[in-house]
């Protein structure tokens, strides 16, 4: 079907696989309300629906999925399970959505379902639960997205990929998948480990995670796009969301090889210590549980796993410099001060691997 226009003659069809787009929409009402002057959520949703239609228009085999990352839950907006589909049909009103002659059926289907389940989601959100709900379930949304991608992308439904599981050389997939996150709120510290696990899973499956950052600041998502080689875009003018989506996020993974996609140059990889949440350049890491500390913990006992740690290998870092006492008593004062300054220097340059003598 796709090669019907004979373009296959000159464009070597290297990668004619259909593509799957999983869009994660951060629907935190707080964050969107701060944006209401420039980009209300309804307008953003309308832009996103157009964007999804464009994606679908590229090839009849393209697929989309939309996941809402809400304040206290993450769930599919499209495709939804049967119960919500019937609800969508009901809310669609008098006309049968499948028989509208003026619209491509796929477009119609997606639009109706997304809007219906979105309305349902908003209806279930009561003011009382929004109290103090600054978070968004990004880790869960990423998990759902990856699970969905994992099913759709697999070559063989019987699961028998010859040559073993992931990481095998020349693993073929039936679709190119990518995840696009439209994010408006900030990071959640307690989601660090699950978000990181999702990022590594995406990296192993070679699924790029694109970030469309409408507002807020998040280090996790920056790392996500950097690790998975996705696009990172911080919107300067949120009101023109559609244009950003169309210009930056529409090319699929096969096309991107020929383009220079926008990425984040400076990604913050520094770690925050577990003890004071300080951002550190040089930290101390427990060899058992990999907790990060800004200074050696008190009594050399790891606060996370309660292990007695051996700090002798640190080469007396931060401690008093060792003073070499000289034997000659006459010139003691002078020599001592010299020795002090010398050993100070030595301990500063000593490496963690070699114990300073």
């Amino acid at each position, binding site marked *: 079907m796709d090669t019907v226009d004979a373009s296959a003659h000159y464009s070597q069809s290297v990668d004619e696989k259909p593509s799957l787009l999983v869009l994660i929409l951060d629907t935190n009402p707080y964050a969107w309300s701060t944006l209401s002057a420039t980009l209300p959520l309804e307008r953003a949703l309308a832009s996103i629906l157009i964007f999804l239609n464009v994606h679908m228009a590229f090839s009849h085999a393209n697929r989309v999925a939309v996941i809402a990352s809400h304040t*206290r839950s993450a769930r599919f907006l499209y495709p939804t399970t049967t119960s919500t589909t019937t609800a969508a049909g009901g809310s669609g009103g008098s006309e049968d959505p499948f028989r509208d002659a003026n619209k491509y059926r796929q477009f119609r289907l997606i639009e109706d379902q997304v809007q219906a389940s979105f309305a349902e989601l908003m209806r279930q959100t009561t003011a009382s639960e929004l109290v103090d709900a600054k978070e968004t379930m990004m880790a869960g949304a990423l998990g*759902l997205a990856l699970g969905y991608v994992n099913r759709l992308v697999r070559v063989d439904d019987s699961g028998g990929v010859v040559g073993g599981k992931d990481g095998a050389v020349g693993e073929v997939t039936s679709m190119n998948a990518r995840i696009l996150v439209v994010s408006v709120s900030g990071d959640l510290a307690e989601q660090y480990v699950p978000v990181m696990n999702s990022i590594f*899973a995406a990296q192993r499956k070679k699924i790029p995670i694109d970030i469309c950052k409408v507002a807020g600041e998040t280090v996790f998502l920056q790392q996500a796009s950097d690790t998975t080689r996705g696009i990172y875009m911080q919107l300067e003018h949120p009101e023109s969301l559609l244009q950003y989506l169309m210009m930056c996020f529409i090319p699929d993974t096969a096309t991107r090889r020929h383009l220079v996609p926008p990425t984040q140059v400076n990604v913050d990889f520094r770690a925050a210590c577990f003890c004071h949440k300080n951002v550190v*350049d040089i930290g101390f890491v427990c060899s058992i*549980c990999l907790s990060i500390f800004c200074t050696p913990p008190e009594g050399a006992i790891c606060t996370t796993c309660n292990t007695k740690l051996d700090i002798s290998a640190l080469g007396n870092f931060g401690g008093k410099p060792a003073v070499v006492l000289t034997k000659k008593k006459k010139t003691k004062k002078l020599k001592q001060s010299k020795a002090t300054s010398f050993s100070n220097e030595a301990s500063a340059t000593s490496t963690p691997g070699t114990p300073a003598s």
Partner: protein
Amino acid sequence: MADSDEDYIATDDEEIGAHNISKSGRHRGAGGAAATGGSGARSKNGSKPGGGAQKRERWEDIKRSWDNVVEGEDGSLSSTVAGLLEAGKRKRLLKDTTPLQRGIIRHLILILDLSSAMMEKDFRPTRYLLSLRYACDFVREYFEQNPISQLGVLGMRDGLAVRISDLSGNPVDHIEAIGKLRLDEGKGAPSLQNALEMSRAALFHAPSHGTREVVIVFGALLSSDPGDIHQTISHLVEDKIRVSVVGLSAQVAVCRELCKRTNAGDEGVYGVALDDKHFRELLLDTTIPPVTRSAKMSASSLLMMGFPSRMVEKTASLCACHSTLTKGGYLCSRCSTKVCALPMECPACGLTLILSTHLARSYHHLFPLKNWVEVPWKAASKSTHCYACQIPFPHPPAKPEELSAPAKTATGTSVSSRYACTICHNHFCIDCDVFCHETLYNCPACQSSVPKGRISNGARGRSDPMEVG
């Protein structure tokens, strides 16, 4: 037919070779080596020494794959085949998920057999080429799972231990070095003792907070050693080096003892590959960080590490690690030396430089995801679709007697094709079960809802009706 003839001759040659060695007396401990080779050959012939007489050996039970397949009600095999596949996936999945202290910072030597025994073709194309390919996979997987660990590769050929790549943390170096071996072929007899002594020397400087491990891919049934290998094993035990072996032909007594003694009596780390898939599984299983058995095995210590930020330059400059021109890289947090890739030890001041993501990569070993449980039909009606991938589940059967069937079928799969997370009680399909436990290490449902204590009435919407009891 020609192939099998050739194979037979090859094994014959090997045995003759082993005897020759013992006769010639070139090596002092050759008698012991020949004995080990002999024991392997003996068990291959089926005449066992007294101890194993009661127990039937694996090869005596003939397994016919077509016995497992039963025709379904509709006369086709598809349902049975699907069930078998599911059982296979489930079997692979069920592991012990108790959080254990593991040696996250590892120092491992991979020893490849490059002897003439590897030229056999029982693994396609040859044992030699297949083991090289899997060794590359191993290196990749090892650094995925253990980003702050070190790896070195050795080879055994012509009775010598050959250094293939030094202990380092860069997967590219190892893969390149292993790739170069492709042009070569297996030669001579392997020497376990030489290889073990060399790896002992290589691991001598490994710091006490890390693990010291050796993984051997062993294709031959003999080891031609210059001395007493049992002494070497004792030295390994003293040095707290653990050895695991993946055998390719048959079990060899000395390997068994080697594994047993260096792993505190645990023989589970010695496996003999049945086919290429099993070989890969056995080898890649060793990429999971080992459990710390006693406090003596590894000392805990506090490590100083640098977390550099990436910088981008207008003009290219030389990096300190490879002396190549690069635009951008990382500056050592202590001495501002430029390195081009992480993790790395700063070439100037020796500080370990890593990204916070490298540490995060190891967290899933420390907080494993619990196994999910099978769902009986009674509880199955609560879900119609897999929570993560939205695949529809089969409907509960109409007959009441089927409804009361136990949750776990004879093959270990769930009777309702549903698997439930024990914490959030949501249902998943087998594929998502495998994916979540082997790749994602999260439960998507637990992550997409707020823990119960914080929920006000009905806040979870759709996930509510899925809760069990």
